[in-house]
């Protein structure tokens, strides 16, 4: 009976761990709806969804990079770089040409990152710090250190179209984000290619032995990450009709935090698209709530850091417990010792 209870408890804990981000989401949503002034109304919820769009879109590709066991620190700068290109070229060619070029530029950044990590075998931290700095310089060079803005009826019409709800609470930018989420979720969880990201992140050598082209998978992950960062930056800039030189800076910490909080392991092989998106949404609700309660930005930063610290602490504890459990498998250890003796 005791054993059964223990099993139930551990099952429950495992279930809680597996769905922790959804539980967190539910708790924050219910708490804010009940207590935060003016949280639970369509205008505010639309604002939350619109704000989430940029970081949720960036998180899609970034999660794949992390599942592969790599890191992409250039996402924020890629978003800014692509936004600046899209708006600068729009003045001459219109969005029809400027947007595809900007998306391709973003994909190019990912390709470069991927090749340097997969083929030249440079640590992804180093590579993407380098790319981040290069992109900052390139952005400043293109703009001459100034923000880029557009005006005119056509531009504002596009901007208003992206911002105003097409369906209740769902402006086109949010609808696009939902579409991206569905496509990426299906791609990562249901396709062979998607499962390969987990294989490579879980154990690169085993993946290679299993016949997976690990380099191609890694390069693809970086391309997807940069492309989605570019798309996010472009959509944000199109809605604002402007791009500032630091517009993507805060997205890096935000997306990294949300992805880790969502349960994607920094060591790779574990995580999910939906989890990251729900984590981004949860953090945004938390931030909005803090503002509605009248707290400043500093409280928002503090809470974000606290949640991240708690999650990392929990991950470390879970990992320690897991290793401890492995050590307690006396039968397996005995078998291992016998096998060694035979050799």
């Amino acid at each position, binding site marked *: 009976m005791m054993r059964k209870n223990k099993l139930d408890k551990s099952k429950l804990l495992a279930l809680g761990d597996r*769905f922790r981000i*959804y539980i967190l*989401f*539910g708790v924050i*949503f219910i708490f804010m*709806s009940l207590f935060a*002034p*003016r949280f*639970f*109304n*369509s*205008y*505010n*919820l*639309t*604002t939350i*969804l619109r*704000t989430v769009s*940029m970081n949720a879109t960036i998180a899609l590709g970034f999660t794949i990079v992390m599942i592969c066991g790599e890191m992409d620190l250039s996402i924020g700068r890629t978003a800014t770089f692509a936004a600046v290109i899209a708006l600068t070229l729009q003045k001459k060619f219109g969005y029809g040409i400027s947007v595809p070029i900007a998306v391709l530029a973003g994909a190019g950044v990912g390709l470069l990152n991927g090749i340097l990590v997969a083929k030249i075998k440079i640590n992804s931290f180093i590579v993407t710090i380098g790319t981040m700095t290069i992109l900052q310089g390139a952005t*400043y060079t293109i*703009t001459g*250190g*100034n*923000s*880029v*803005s557009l*005006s005119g009826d056509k531009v*504002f019409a596009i*901007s208003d179209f992206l*911002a105003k709800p097409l369906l*209740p*609470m769902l402006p086109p930018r949010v609808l696009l984000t939902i579409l991206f989420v569905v496509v990426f*979720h299906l791609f990562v*969880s249901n396709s062979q290619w998607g499962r390969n990201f987990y294989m490579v992140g879980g154990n690169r050598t085993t993946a290679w032995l299993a016949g997976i082209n690990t380099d191609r998978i890694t390069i693809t992950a970086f391309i997807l990450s940069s492309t989605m960062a570019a798309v996010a930056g472009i959509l*944000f800039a199109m*809605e*604002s*009709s*402007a791009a*500032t*030189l*630091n*517009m993507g*800076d*805060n*997205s890096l910490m935000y997306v990294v935090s949300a992805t880790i909080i969502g349960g994607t392991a920094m060591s790779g092989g574990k995580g*999910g698209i*939906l*989890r990251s*998106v*729900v984590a981004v*949404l949860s953090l945004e609700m938390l931030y*909005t709530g803090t*503002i*509605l309660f*009248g707290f*400043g*930005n*500093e409280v928002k*930063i503090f809470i974000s850091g606290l949640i991240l610290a708690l999650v990392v602490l929990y991950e470390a504890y879970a990992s320690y417990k897991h290793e401890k459990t492995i050590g307690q498998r006396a039968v397996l250890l005995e078998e291992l010792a016998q096998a060694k003796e035979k050799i």
Partner: protein
Amino acid sequence: MKKQVKVVLLAMVLLCLGGLLFAQGEKAVGVTGAGAAANLEASLKVDTSVLKAADGQPLLRLSSELPKIPTRPANPEALPDTDPLRWFDMEYAGWDTKKTNIPASPKDGAIGKRVVMIVHGDHPWTTACSNGAKKVADAYGMDLKILSPNWDLAVQNQMIDQSINERPDMILIIPLDATTAIQQARRINQSGIPFIFFNTLPTAEAMNYAITWTGPDDFGQMRKLAKVFADEMRRRNPGAKELGIAYVQHAPGGSPYFARSYGPLSELAGYAPEVVTLDMQAPGFEADRTMQLVSDWLTRFGPRLKGIFAADDSAQALGIIEALKKAGRDDIVVVAAGNSKIGMDMVTDGSLFAITYQTAEGDGALAVQTAADWFNGKELPNRRDIPQHIITKADVADFYPPQW
């Protein structure tokens, strides 16, 4: 996996239901009839002219001099950077605007009004500015909520949306970026909530949607500082055919970036043609980075460098003075925009030649006062400028204790 999808779908349905149930949010409740008249009468009796800033100066000061506005060139951007008219749309933003969809004043008094103030970021200047704003808000019994996006445009946009959601009686906003302010202004304007820009100027187009703008005339102030700067360089280098200077710039994008670089640049081109710009750099607001930049300039330009024009009289000025001290170059004239304790102390000890009067408390106070005037039904000009003054060693003592 299916479970996860179900949970997410459920969450989305919850969000949608929540939104539909409370479709329009809360509406502001106004004062009507006799209550409004009494409130207006009481509000008009409030005397804020007696309020003082931390430096002992009157808290609310309005410039009495109106600038002479030249005719706008057909395409200012086609002009060279050294032409003052190149900066027409920024320098004179707001003076000549086509106001669009501006709400009429309720003329029911400022007392009890809910005002949201969205600043640019956390900084000692912002704290002083907020203190000034609170002093006026308290005098009128206004409910003032101050939000800081910490220099993040996305967060400022979000704060604007959340403020619209709260339906305050007025929004006061420092635009984070001059050019991106157009969309922010349109959004608030479309919501029907009256708003005022303050401190930094947005582009002229954004001003069409705002009731007015209040703050320091940064371009005007920098033009004055540039003249004082040139005069001092001439005094120290009599007969010099070339006076090489360099600019330590503000953060790119905002109006101070343009006003504090191209304001003096275009002014000096006419006032002191012998002044030659050797370099312009924006190292941020860290003393060590500025020190490194100035050390590099000293190596690169040597004795050609005669003056440095800085956008900030605190961290940037500290870095500049430290680099000059290390190199033993006390011949270089340094001036800076700002009115901080660090800057004032350096003017007092002579290491900084001049700074600008830039009352942080007065800036915030004037924005709230202007909001109060609007509630009281007063006619407002397109811009309300804070008076200009250049602080040198001769009068720096009058501005102690500093506001920040």
